[in-house]
Every structure is written in structure tokens, then in C-alpha cells.
């Protein structure tokens, strides 16, 4: 990475950090949502982008983090920070206990098993009195959007630095080796089980922290919204749209898609959801390796980039 890259990114972070001082309330609230989605996309990037395991269960971590904060604050009257730690502990325990059997599955089977996990969790939590069953929990309100915004931005910076570290660490190379050829990685001495579980847990920690902040911010939590499968697909499509397996791709994907979606839902409400579906379909067909890859190759190939992608994968 060149010096002017670092300078540019530093400037972007400063501009983003200043938003609460010069932006409108609407912009700050949009920002909190978009930044938290970017954290989720980055979290998914660790297990999906770098390790190559298409997790449809990261929304479970998000839900556990949200419930960790809610249970600690509402039922036990503990401070927010303790709730965040509690949520992270729940997510790590879940990642280790269920990760070991589930991460043995490959391809479609892994995706479907994780898809089912979030449904199981929603059903289980809606029967636990401590978690407020079906009704959910109402957290004490804290009207401080500036704080929530900076927390979300800070979390995104930490998640991104972690991924940057991954790309140049032994651990990260191990994950990429697993993605490219798992048997080969094992032969080369990578402890694949340990690496996969650690990647799953690390991805879970960031998702849980995002869930905790979101729960305290909107002050209301129920099983259906906490373990929402469409949230999981959102984080995947944002990561893939920007470029899964790259450091900045998921952020670009999350911020650009959030902005377009926000613009559309303010213009025509019912079209925003439809738009999301169409973007997913079009992106998978036309630029399956994301914006990052498109920018890199578009300069050389021009509009043929899209037709070449189609030609590569069609029957």
C-alpha cells in the first residue's frame, strides 16, 4: 500500500467521523445503519470472503450480540459495556460449539445448515422468558445519535484494520489456503479445523458487536428482527457487490448499496425491496467478482468485461 493510499483513507475516515458535527439528523441515522451494515459485511468477509465458507448464519451472531446487550441491560440492570462483552461471549461460545460440527460441511450443505441455524435460534429465543419470549425486550432509551454513530464508525475501523492485518498474517494466509484448496492446506500443515473455527468466531465477534450497538440504538428487540435471514443476505450481497475477499470492498459495497436503497425508499417505498433483489440478480450475472474487480479490469477490457463474465459461466 502506497503512502497516498493511507493518506486518502485517513482523510475519508476524518470526513466520516465529522458527519455528526455538520450532517443532518437524517444523515446521521442513515450513517449509523450503513456503518453497522458495513461492519456486518466485513465480519462476513472473514468467513465468506477469505475462508470461502458461504455462511448464511452470521445473523445469529448479530442476534446474540443484540440479545446479550438487551438481557444485560433490561434483566440484570448492568451497563451497556458489560452487555457488549456478554454478547461477544455468547457469539464465541456459539461459534465454537456449532462451528466445529457445521464447518465440517462443504459447499451447499454448509450454506443450508447455517441458513437453518438462524431459524432455529429465532424459534428457541422466542421461548426463553429471560429474552422476553415472542414479545421481545425494550431497552432504556439513550438519545445520543452522535455517540452511536462514532461507536459504529470506530467498530468499522477496527474490523477493517483486523482484516488488513489478516491479509499479511500467517493466520490470514492459512484462511486463503483453505479457500483455494482445503485438502492442500491441510497437507501443508494448516490446522484447518482450528483456523476455520477461529475465522467463524472472529467474524462472529464483529457481527455481535454490531448487533449490540444496533439494539441499544433502536431500543427494541424481538426474535424475528434479531435473527432475520434477509439481514444475513444483505451483508453477503454488500460484501460480494463491493468485492468479497478484499480489504475495502465490503465497505464500498455496503455504503453504496445503502445509499441507493435509502434514496429509492424515500422516493418510492415499495420499490426499494424490489430494487435489492434486482441488484443481486444483475450483480451476480454481470460482475460476479464485485466492483473492485470490475474497476481493475474495466480499464483494459471496457464494456466487453460484462459479456466476458457471462460467457465464462453460461451453459
Amino acid at each position: 500500500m502506497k503512502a497516498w493510499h493511507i493518506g486518502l483513507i485517513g482523510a475519508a475516515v476524518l470526513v466520516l467521523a465529522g458527519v455528526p458535527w455538520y450532517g443532518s439528523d437524517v444523515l446521521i441515522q442513515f450513517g449509523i445503519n450503513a456503518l453497522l451494515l458495513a461492519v456486518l459485511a466485513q465480519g462476513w468477509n472473514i468467513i465468506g470472503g477469505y475462508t470461502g465458507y458461504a455462511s448464511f448464519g452470521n445473523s445469529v451472531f448479530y442476534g446474540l450480540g443484540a440479545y446479550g446487550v438487551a438481557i444485560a441491560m433490561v434483566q440484570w440492570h448492568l451497563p451497556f459495556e458489560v452487555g457488549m462483552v456478554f454478547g461477544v461471549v455468547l457469539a464465541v461460545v456459539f461459534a465454537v460449539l456449532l462451528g466445529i460440527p457445521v464447518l465440517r460441511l462443504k459447499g451447499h450443505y454448509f450454506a443450508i445448515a447455517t441458513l437453518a441455524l438462524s431459524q432455529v435460534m429465532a424459534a428457541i429465543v422466542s421461548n426463553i422468558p429471560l429474552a422476553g419470549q415472542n414479545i421481545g425486550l425494550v431497552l432504556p432509551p439513550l438519545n445520543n445519535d452522535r455517540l452511536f454513530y462514532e461507536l459504529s464508525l470506530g467498530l468499522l475501523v477496527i474490523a477493517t484494520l483486523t482484516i488488513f492485518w489478516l491479509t499479511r498474517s500467517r493466520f490470514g494466509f492459512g484462511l486463503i489456503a483453505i479457500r483455494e484448496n482445503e485438502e492442500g492446506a491441510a497437507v501443508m500443515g494448516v490446522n484447518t479445523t482450528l483456523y476455520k473455527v477461529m475465522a467463524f468466531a472472529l467474524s462472529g465477534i464483529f457481527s455481535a458487536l454490531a448487533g449490540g450497538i444496533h439494539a441499544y440504538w433502536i431500543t427494541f428487540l424481538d426474535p424475528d428482527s434479531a435473527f432475520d435471514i434477509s439481514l444475513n443476505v444483505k451483508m453477503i450481497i454488500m460484501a460480494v457487490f463491493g468485492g468479497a475477499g478484499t480489504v475495502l470492498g465490503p465497505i464500498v459495497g455496503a455504503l453504496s448499496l445503502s445509499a441507493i436503497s435509502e434514496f429509492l425508499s424515500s422516493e418510492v417505498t415499495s420499490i426499494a425491496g424490489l430494487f435489492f433483489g434486482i441488484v443481486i440478480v444483475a450483480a451476480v450475472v454481470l460482475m460476479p467478482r464485485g466492483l473492485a474487480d470490475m474497476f481493475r479490469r474495466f480499464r483494459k477490457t471496457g464494456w466487453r468485461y460484462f459479456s466476458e463474465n457471462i460467457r465464462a459461466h453460461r451453459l
Partner: protein
Amino acid sequence: MDLLAQILVNGTLLGGLYAVMALGLALVWGVLNIVNLAHGAFIMLGAYVSWHLYTYLHIDPFLGLPITAVVMFALGYALQRGLLNLIVRAPMFNTLLITFGLEVVLTYLAQLAFSADFRTINPPYAGNSLQWGPVVLPVARLGAFCMAIVLTLGMWLFLLHTRLGRAIRATAQNLVAARLYGVEPRHLYAVTFAIGIALAGAAGGLYGTVSQINPYIGASLTAKSFAIAIIGGLDNPLGVIVGGLFLGIVESLTTLYIGPTFADVASFGILVLVLIVRPTGLLGKTA
């Protein structure tokens, strides 16, 4: 004891319907290696087609099933030929995303076209039931069960004994070899997907006679279909019947003895367990 017998019968009737829901999913997955996350949305659309046929043209939902199936067949053929064939050779992950995108598009289009209200297909005999010893058999559920069994067995015979069925099975085993023997893959893929979607549509028509429909039922029906297809195994339509009956009975028993909200926990819990212990399905071949 009478109650248990009634529950087992209810579970069996439900299970037959579940089987036909999962049949198309298993076919598309087994032959085309496409895991269709939009499967439930196609079931939902089939239910709406049947609802419109019954409400506006007064066609009995059971007699209207062939029309529903033909409409859904056409939709399935067009989607595979025009869209999904473009990504068949892409990594597995892209097919998951594109079918999820389709699910979102179909759900929102259905919401725009049909509104979010609950609908039911209510033929005059919907409330009738037969008495069989201590057990009550609702006519609509019994009819749906019988149709489901007919469709599943028909599917099995079709795959085993017709030219097209053989071509489909040959493609599932080896695409390159099948192509050498004169199979046109683009057309065959489209036909296979279309058959899967026609079955999903028929299942939706049957579902609409026993349950309420709205644009959002798709996601949970997709998940149920996965559970059934995986429990039964993908190789064999008879496995899907076993998976459907198993899940129907388990859900009915769980609803009675533990509580209705645990029915989903039971079915998904079993799905996860089967995936972990025996990913080729209870009846599937060992890998």
C-alpha cells in the same frame, strides 16, 4: 389414544403435501446442482395462480392444478433459459445468491400485484370431512394428500421410464457424456427446472386449499423443502415422500406435546442434525 391416532393421521396428510413441495427442489438440486432458494416463492406463486383460477374463473382448485402447473412450467422454462443458464457454471455461491435475489424479486412483485392480505382457496367442500373410526379426515387435506402421492409417484415413473426422464438422469450423472449422446443441455436444463417449478406450483395450489397464503410464505416453505429433501436424500423421489411424511408427523407430534412454536425448532433441528450426521440423507447413498 384416539388423539394420538388423529395426530398421526394429520401428520401423514400434511407430510404428503410437504413431499410434493420438496420434490421439485430435490429434482433441480440433484440434476442441475442449483440450490434454489426461490423455491418457496414459486410455491407461493402457484398458490396465487390457483387462487385466481378459482376466484375469477371458478375452476375447482384440484381440477385447476394442470393449468397452474402449465403456467408455472412456462415461467420456469423462461427463467432457466433466459437467466439461470447464464450462471450454471459459476461457483456454487453465485447460484445461491441469484436464486435468493429471485426470491426477493418474486416476493415484492407478488406483494405489488396481489397485496399483502391473507387469501384462502375455499371451495364449497372445504369444511367437509369423513369419519373413519375415531379419526376425522378433512376432505381438502385428504384430496391434497392423494394428489401429492399421485404427483410424486408420477414423477418417479417419469424419471425411470420415459426418454426425457432418462435424458435428465443421464445429465445428472455426466453432462459431457450426455451431450455426446445428443442431449441439448440448454433445453434440457430449462425443461428440468421447469418441471421442478411446475411441481412447486402444483404444491402451491394444494397448499392454498389447506392453508392461508400471502406473499411472504415463501421463505419458510423453502426452508421446509430443504429439510425434507435433505432428510430424504436427493437421489430418489421415494426418499422425498419418506422425508415429507417424517417431517409432517414430527411437526404434528411436537405441536401436540411441546407447543406449536416448537414445530419449527423440531424440523430445523432435525435438518441440522441430519446434515451433520449424514449429509446424503437418511435414504441417500453414502458418499
